[in-house]
């Protein structure tokens, strides 16, 4: 289902590299999603423990190192798989962004997972978007990826929407 974009400025910017604010919004949403996934994992572990050991029901308390590692693993898995699958996680879906290679192709799985891992290890790399002339983060520069505005839903077997190419 490809719907019309009613905003003229938005239509003109489809396919362009996204700026800092949109990407921060998308990442904040994704952070919330990761937190929800972690909480869900804890609840699931608690339910399993309850079923195995009986009452009372309590959430497992992880040691700090395992806690941080688990959250990081969840984040890497969630972001990496989302970018490799459709190029967009939930946050990027809401913000109308898509992660692609600079050539426009979908990310491969290893590149996607690497990009997610780099973001988890060094989130401040996103700040380079502010300074970059091409709106690229450090991770984008390292992995030759880009985040673009792409509001449209287009399945793999469908023709791509024409990209308006304004004068630079």
């Amino acid at each position: 289902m490809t719907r019309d974009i009613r905003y003229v400025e938005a239509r003109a910017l489809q396919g362009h590299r996204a700026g800092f604010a949109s990407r921060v919004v998308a990442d904040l949403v994704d952070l919330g999603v990761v937190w929800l996934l972690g909480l869900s994992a804890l609840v699931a572990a608690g339910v399993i423990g309850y079923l195995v050991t009986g009452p009372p029901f309590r959430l497992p308390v992880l040691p700090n190192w395992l806690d941080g590692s688990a959250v990081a693993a969840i984040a890497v898995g969630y972001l990496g798989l989302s970018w490799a699958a459709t190029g967009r996680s939930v946050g990027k879906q809401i913000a109308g962004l898509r992660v692609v290679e600079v050539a426009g192709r979908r990310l491969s799985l290893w590149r996607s997972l690497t990009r997610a891992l780099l973001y988890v290890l060094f989130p401040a790399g996103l700040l380079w978007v502010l300074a970059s002339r091409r709106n690229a983060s450090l991770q984008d520069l390292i992995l030759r990826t880009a985040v673009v505005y792409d509001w449209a839903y287009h399945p793999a077997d469908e023709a791509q929407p024409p990209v308006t190419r304004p004068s630079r």
Partner: protein
Amino acid sequence: MSRWGEEVTVPDSGRSLVPRPSERTPVRPPDGRVDVPRLLAAAAFGLAVEAQRRSLDAAAVVVTRVGSPLRILAGPAVALAQGSVAVARHHLDLDRWAARGLAEQQRAREAATRAIRGVIAAVAAAVLDQVDLDQVVARVDLDQVVDRVDLDAVAQRIDLDAIVNRIDLDAIVARVDINAILARVDIPALTEEVIDEVDLGEIIRESSSTMASETVDALRVQGMRVDGLVSRIVDRILLREGQRQTGPLDRPPRP
């Protein structure tokens, strides 16, 4: 009807008693033998009739040609005759005889009228017995008759308001059993059919989807504007000139 057969017609004057040549029928029977007594009787009758006709013709000619002088010449004779008649009328009681004659005439006229009425009734009954009215009606082209009737004119002459005013609608409605009618209507099935046609789910889906997408679009375009604003601020701080090279990509994005 009579012994004279077709020779006798209904008389309207004395001359019409005389048959025309075309109306004359031979007295000779089909077998060729001559019926003498009948021949003689017919000849005598024919002779008398012819004599009557010729005498009437002669009288008419005489009246036409010599009527006026004769009337002048006959004036004194007529006066004399009228005087004689007055004498005879007084002595012979002519008035009584005339009255009797007139009464007889009246009686004969009434008898003839009665007879003719009876004949007409009998003839009409006989004709009706012979006529098959169904066949007659079958031969009537009712379509043509109807075509000639101006139904619009007939309809215009009908005062529908007056007819409607005479109808007591309240009484009619009071006799209608609405509950019975409603009992015959399958309202649940009807309602279900209407709901099926309306497809409420599709409407809700469309409207909620439209609302959601409008909200998301507004959020996204706000993000775009903030992106541009932040970039311009940073570029100004960095004393950078020219716009950022943000795209588009050489190839459109692929999911």
